[in-house]
């Protein structure tokens, strides 16, 4: 990560377009980063494709043409590595932790994780099989709380959606989601969140037609600018 300064001076100017597959939770940050990368390296274009991480892995194994993959969890990156599509070692570039999310008015007066298990509170969480769901299970275990949700959503977005629309009293989502939703929700940090830290790895792909650009983009994300943009969105450092 310390080489960013020199490489641009010694290498020939980068050019060409690459396609980056990134987890949906990275939509805002990566759109920003792609813009900045293009500004820094005139002649390059970064095309972005966002979807759920597992969706993207399915697409990549089915032959989707891409140069870089940024996953929201290690498991999906591992699936891709196992398929032999990853060039070199994936690099972790961000982390994310869970936070309680409630409507701005906090109708159920939620303060702690234990409040989510109170009878009468409509809580939505992710189903255990999806990444945010496994994190939820981990914090529940750590806190010794058993939440009886009214819905086990298929993605963190759906959890957030249930809270922003006011259907649910509370939900468990990532810090970045709470930040992204702005004033439409209120985030309530809880102490046990540290027991389930989700790591975001990024890697260039073997199929890349422009390995130099791909590698540069990975470095860019991992580098200082990437850090600051990601931090601004609420991501933690790896």
């Amino acid at each position, binding site marked *: 990560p310390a080489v960013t300064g020199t490489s641009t001076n010694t290498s020939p100017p980068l050019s060409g377009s690459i396609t980056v597959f990134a987890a949906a939770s990275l939509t805002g940050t990566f759109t920003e980063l792609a813009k900045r990368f293009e500004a820094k390296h005139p002649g390059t274009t970064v095309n972005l494709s966002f979807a759920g991480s*597992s969706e993207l892995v*399915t697409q990549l194994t089915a032959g989707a043409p891409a140069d870089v993959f940024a996953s929201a969890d290690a498991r999906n990156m591992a699936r891709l590595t196992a398929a032999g599509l990853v060039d070199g070692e994936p690099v972790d570039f961000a982390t994310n932790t869970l936070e309680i999310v409630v409507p701005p008015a906090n109708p159920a007066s939620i303060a702690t994780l234990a409040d989510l298990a109170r009878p009468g509170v409509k809580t*939505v969480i992710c*189903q255990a*099989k*999806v990444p945010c769901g496994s994190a939820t299970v981990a914090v529940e275990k750590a806190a010794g709380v058993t939440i009886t949700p009214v*819905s086990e*959503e298929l993605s963190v977005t759906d959890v957030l959606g249930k809270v922003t*629309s006011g*259907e649910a009293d509370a939900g468990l989502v990532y810090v970045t989601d709470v930040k992204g939703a702005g004033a439409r929700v209120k985030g309530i940090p809880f102490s046990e969140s540290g027991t389930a830290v989700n790591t975001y790895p990024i890697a260039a792909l073997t199929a890349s037609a422009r390995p130099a650009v791909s590698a540069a983009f990975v470095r860019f994300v991992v580098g200082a600018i990437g850090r600051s943009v990601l931090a601004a969105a609420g991501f933690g450092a790896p």
Partner: protein
Amino acid sequence: MVAVAAVGALFVLLPLAAMATRVDWANFLALVTSESSVAALLLSLRTSVAATALCVVLGVPMALVLARTTFWGQRLVRTLVLLPLVLPPVIGGIALLAAFGRQGLLGHTLELLGIRIAFSTTAVVLAQTFVALPFLVLSLEGALRVAGTRYEAVAATLGARPTTVLRRITLPLVLPALLSGAVLSFARALGEFGATLTFAGSLQGVTRTLPLEIYLQRETDPNAAVALSLVLLVVSVAVVALTLRTVPGPAGAP
């Protein structure tokens, strides 16, 4: 022309066949009889039947009014009623939330009446009805227009009251269209995913229908997802085929 038709048919059939080749037959039974799968299948069947019934109850009068009366703004109403066909289902779910959600237009009223729709099986049925209703209205209205009003007029001159005409002439004449519309509605309800997810949530045995279960399984076990898809497919085929068997083609065909 037959060649083009064959190409068209292949275009649809090939992917279906290809998917069947992906099924892990060795574990098929285990995959599809897991508790969560069975719960999802049963829930799907139950809600789809309810949604189809609701479609028939609401859709038949709608088709009749659209086909047999003229009123100001009819074309607009007709177009709007067909919109759920077009809307990406997730948007449909958002719209349903905006209307029937806790903070929706009717939310307060419903709350006062003690009716809670969100996160209930009722919500699933409503979401399915919302997306499936246009199928029924569309097939039936078309059939009603094609059938025309001549037989109904004759029946009226024979002294039949409007309800008698409806029961003994109109409905029997368009029965094939009604049946095929109901089958389509059922099928669409059975496959409904996006609106359900957004509007009803996903809880095993309550709101997690088969398509949602398939989506979930895909996350961890693509084999299970494919196997379940095949189940969904077979159920649909069975329903469609069974119903069409009882329909001998348009009544009155020469």
